[in-house]
């Protein structure tokens, strides 16, 4: 079953690629370069000539092709999990992932057919992050570390799930990051990315001297960034201070610190560069990585709570690290 886990890695990686290419579609204003859906200029999607993938079509049709591949991989994943994973909740999660990607594809089609209505575009962006979170979570749940409970004989500190402060911090941080992503999507899809053209000030002042929808949503995104930085730092430093021997927590915590610094810098550069396509799109991609890293940390902190002893028939998974459970799910470190 190590192959199932490797497959989930491929799907999660493909989903990140899909997210980034989707960001390129918006950054290059190519969202309506292909006026029809699900066909492409009248062609069946997969028979559209590659030689005609020019200009904005390259991004939009490329996004559709990658989305189709991700959908296909998700079908395989859902079926694979259904037939081999004894955990009922995992089988359900596979189905949920499949339903999510279908809804996501439909939302994408609706954005084209109705000329990119902002609420639908924002929903498409928000659901993309949820789907990415699902694929990464499934990868986590099929990993050897998760299956063996991150056993560490030299562990000195108490279990992470008993650290109520950490539990709250990780959930709050994850929620804040997702909220910030939604605000960013609303800003992008209402054309407010440069509503405040200077940085770090706003029209030369700390607070914008006048307000509009665009200025409001843009400023909210900037303030939200400060909250996210604070929450990420508080979470990561708490892990470093109280759970230093737990590699499964230290690694994502350290990665969170790195990502939030990069993300904040990219956000500033997006404004200062006048929304350079590469910088703008990277900001989206790093934001997605920041979100799923926080999700991984949250899940790992709560690993013991989420894997309380029960039988596969009732949906749980025994936290035991016996050889039999290793072999049933292919958990090999």
């Amino acid at each position: 079953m190590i192959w199932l886990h490797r497959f989930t890695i491929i799907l999660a990686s493909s989903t990140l690629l899909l997210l980034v290419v989707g960001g390129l579609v918006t950054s290059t204003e190519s969202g309506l370069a292909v006026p029809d859906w699900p066909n492409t200029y009248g062609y069946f999607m997969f028979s559209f000539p590659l030689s005609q993938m020019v200009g904005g079509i390259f991004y939009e049709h490329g996004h559709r092709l990658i989305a189709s591949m991700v959908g296909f991989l998700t079908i395989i994943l859902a079926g694979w999990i259904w037939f081999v994973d004894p955990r009922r909740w995992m089988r359900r999660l596979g189905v949920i992932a499949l339903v999510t990607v279908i809804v996501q594809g439909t939302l994408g089609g609706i954005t084209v057919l109705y000329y990119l209505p902002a609420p639908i575009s924002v929903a498409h962006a928000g659901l993309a992050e949820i789907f990415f979170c699902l694929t990464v979570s499934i990868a986590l749940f099929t990993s050897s570390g998760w299956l063996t409970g991150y056993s560490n004989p030299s562990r000195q500190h108490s279990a992470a799930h008993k650290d109520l402060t950490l539990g709250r911090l990780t959930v709050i941080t994850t929620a804040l990051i997702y909220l910030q992503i939604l605000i960013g999507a609303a800003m992008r899809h209402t054309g407010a990315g440069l509503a405040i053209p200077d940085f770090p000030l706003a029209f030369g002042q700390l607070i914008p001297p006048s307000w509009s929808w665009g200025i409001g949503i843009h400023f909210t995104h900037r303030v939200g960034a400060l909250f996210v930085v604070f929450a990420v730092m508080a979470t990561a430093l708490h892990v470093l201070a109280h759970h230093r021997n737990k590699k499964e927590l230290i690694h994502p915590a350290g990665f969170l610190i790195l990502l939030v610094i990069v993300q904040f810098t990219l956000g500033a550069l997006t404004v200062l560069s006048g929304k350079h396509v590469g910088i703008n799109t990277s900001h989206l991609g790093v934001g997605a990585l920041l979100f799923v890293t926080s999700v991984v940390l949250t899940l790992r902190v709560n690993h013991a709570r989420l894997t309380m002893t029960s039988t596969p028939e009732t949906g749980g998974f025994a936290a035991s690290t016996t050889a039999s459970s290793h072999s049933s799910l292919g958990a090999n470190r």
Partner: protein
Amino acid sequence: MEARKMWTIASMMVIVLTGACGGNGGDTDVAPATEPETPAAMAFDPATAGNITGTINLEGTAPEAEVIRMNSDPVCVGERPDNPMTEYYVVGDDGSLHNVFVYVKEGLEGHSFPTPSEPVILNQDGCTYLPHVFGIQVDQPLQVTNSDPTLHNIHATPSLNDEFNTGQPIEGMTYETEFTEVEVMVPFKCDVHGWMNSYVGVLDHPYYSVSGDGGAFSLNTLPPGDYVIEAWHEMLGAQTQNITIAESETAEISFTFTVS
């Protein structure tokens, strides 16, 4: 045989019912729905028509035009070896400003004008829109033509009229539509080739002009009266002027746009 008779009878009933429900006029017991009466068009003697002519000038130095990089589509690069330039500011050597849409904004209330049946042509040639700025009347056909051996999509983003976005993957394809509401201006763009854009002014009368060489424009055969004339430029905004046309008079006005 019985089934065939039944289908024949059913088809005849459908035809009869359709004929009874459709068509205009005829004797009915139901009074036709009342419609608001269209006011009679104001009488206008063409012999008294006047004209407005003028020029559009630019004060200050406009940003220089830049070469349009068409690298995202090799076909466009091949079609345009002449280094096409951006058209945000087209300024003559004499300081005249081209591509300014000039039209009668007010003063024609009470007049009605027939809708031309001849279509206005918007051509995609050399991966640019021709013309860049133009006018059309409400309900007049607009024919968009692809004269390039590459794909284009024609995406109009009006505020009052219906938005549309249609693809033309094949050279020679045409698309016909019309606008139903007065709107100045409706932008066009191609989402495949981001540098392509055009603007159309939709009016309910034929008195519009686009400044060309020398910044010249003309609005001909106008009924005598008081008018508000507006001049619109895609980068410099709009200006208005009041003018009165006497019978058979040709009046001159000019507009000056300033680049700060």
